């Protein structure tokens, strides 16, 4: 063999070996694509931003701890500014990207997309906790990890009736009086009103005149003056934080002495900042622990908040971060179960993922979750907190299913 040929052969062999080495290097594990629609710009951006941060941080945590049985999640997170046409546009993008599931946001996008996700069989895990999304016959692919608004309202009224009413001077002498304050035209604010009225009637309350309070309100004096005539023992407020703070401030200033019950979107760490002294003693439903509270997995929530968003002081982080984690962790568990069953289709994620969960507990102060093929109310327990002396303290925990099993099973699903 001539030396030239020897050299050529040597280079060829070396090339083949280098190529083999190159091929042996892993080119990246399989991924599961997840879409996330968030509001970081629009009407709900004050709470939407923190929720969106929580989603992204939770996905980092899920990937760092083994992903979905070894598969990483690739998150496509977009701000849709609470514009419904943009939510529909982004949904089309998620479909084109072949996302296995979507983490959605509010009432607007969730309701606009509910028929489409049912037709396309794409699980849509959102932060709209309306009771009418819990009936799988109507909205089979809408899911969430929270106590629904109707169950929250029923739990709040029950907790007040059990814990506060017996201490009032008129207890046993007359019926307790309740009034409702909310924005009549808002689908979110009004979604639990029917259940609240039904529950108040069941427990023997006298119902006062309802007050229409805009989500944009910062002056609610006329509504408070109207309420003063009725003298309610308790007020149920189903608006979001700023408008709730306006009612609390005006009630305090005008001397309306009544207890206040709040749904989750009106009850967060920003409320005392906006309402000041008027926030003292308010009672609210919080289906998750407040940011930083001592519950399982909160250490990771705080650690990932510090790691991935070090520019945001921890004092500015809220319960909405924890909410984001809850939906992301719940979805991840459903994906793991479906993946184990070998079916990561939308139908598989629903059937072998969500609907196999029985009292699934992932920490974060969230009540154990159960989904069945006929009932998507993931939690029957309403965790009720009181804001007292600058702290959110657990006041009561009402399990509606245990207390009224017949009504829970046969009457209350889907509204």
């Amino acid at each position, binding site marked *: 063999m001539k030396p030239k040929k*020897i050299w050529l052969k040597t*280079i060829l*062999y*070396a090339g083949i070996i280098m190529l083999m080495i190159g091929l042996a290097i892993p080119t990246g594990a399989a991924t599961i694509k997840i879409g996330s629609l968030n509001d970081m710009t629009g*009407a709900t*951006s004050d709470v939407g931003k923190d929720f969106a941060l929580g989603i992204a941080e939770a996905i980092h945590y899920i990937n760092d701890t083994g992903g979905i049985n070894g598969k990483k999640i690739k998150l496509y997170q977009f701000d849709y500014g609470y514009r419904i046409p943009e939510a529909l546009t982004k949904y089309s993008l998620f479909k084109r990207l072949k996302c296995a599931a979507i983490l959605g946001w509010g009432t607007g996008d969730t309701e606009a997309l509910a028929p489409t996700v049912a037709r396309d069989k794409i699980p849509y895990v959102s932060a709209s906790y309306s009771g009418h999304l819990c009936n799988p016959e109507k909205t089979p692919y809408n899911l969430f990890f929270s106590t629904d608004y109707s169950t929250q309202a029923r739990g709040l009224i029950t907790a007040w009736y059990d814990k506060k009413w017996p201490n009032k001077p008129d207890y046993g002498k007359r019926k307790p009086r309740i009034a409702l304050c909310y924005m009549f035209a808002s689908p979110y604010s009004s979604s639990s009103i029917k259940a609240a009225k039904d529950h108040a009637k069941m427990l023997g309350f006298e119902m006062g005149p309802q007050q229409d309070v805009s989500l944009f309100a910062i002056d609610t004096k006329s509504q408070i003056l109207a309420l003063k005539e009725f003298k309610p023992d308790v007020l149920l407020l189903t608006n979001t934080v*700023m408008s709730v703070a306006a009612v609390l401030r005006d009630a305090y200033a005008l001397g309306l002495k009544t207890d206040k019950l709040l749904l989750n979107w009106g009850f967060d760490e920003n409320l005392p900042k906006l309402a000041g002294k008027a926030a003292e003693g308010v009672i609210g439903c919080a289906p998750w622990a407040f940011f930083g509270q001592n519950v399982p997995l909160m250490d990771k929530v705080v650690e990932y908040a510090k790691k991935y*968003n*070090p*520019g945001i002081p921890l004092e500015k982080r809220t319960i909405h971060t924890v909410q984001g984690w809850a939906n992301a962790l719940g979805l991840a568990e459903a994906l793991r179960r479906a993946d184990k069953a070998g079916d990561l289709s939308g139908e598989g994620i629903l059937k072998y993922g969500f609907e196999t969960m029985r009292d699934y507990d992932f920490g974060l102060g969230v009540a154990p979750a159960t989904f069945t093929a006929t009932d998507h109310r993931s939690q029957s327990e309403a965790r009720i907190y009181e804001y007292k002396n600058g702290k959110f303290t657990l006041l009561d925990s009402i399990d509606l299913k245990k207390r009224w099993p017949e009504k829970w099973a046969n009457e209350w699903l889907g509204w």
Partner: protein
Amino acid sequence: MKKKLTIILSFIIILAVLLAGCAAMMTKPTARNFQAPIVTLDSMEVEHFWGWWYYSNKVKPTMGKAGNYGAPLDLAFIFNVENPNPFPVELESLKFTVAFEEFDLNTVSSIETQWIPPGKTNQIRVHAMFDGRQSLLSLLVTGGFKLKEKTGAAGAGAALKQLGKWWKAAPEYGFPIYVKEGAAVFKADSLVKVAMFSATFP
């Protein structure tokens, strides 16, 4: 026999040279030597401008549906991303909040990845679209109390007036725009570093 020896020897030499070359070229990232890249705002541009207008749903459009529509404002933020490491790093994502004066109006993110060579500086352009209607709702729902403190007035009229001032002044950089709470996620092998950044423009 001599030929075989020559083949083996030359093969070993080539392989050694190749491996040594690779090793010399690449310092391996470790938790100790991986420094967070530096992100700075290079400039801000009004990328597209439509002036200021707002139509409520009471106005009948020439075509299409009546609705509440406000002028969009498209700003572009250009960042320098400097990699001080002796190995390439991957920018995985970048996000930040934009505030007009003291009002947070937008949180923007970019999920397109890019590699930054060792010791080099890349640039990244991130668009932030402000929609007059969404900005109005944001001011009303989340900034109502603050707006009242600033302007002495509240409600939709006060919020629209404030938005009009910003929109009209934007092309002249007539008010401070803040980049806040910036976080850029970088990866080198399996290591992660997050760089914080903030800026004011102009």
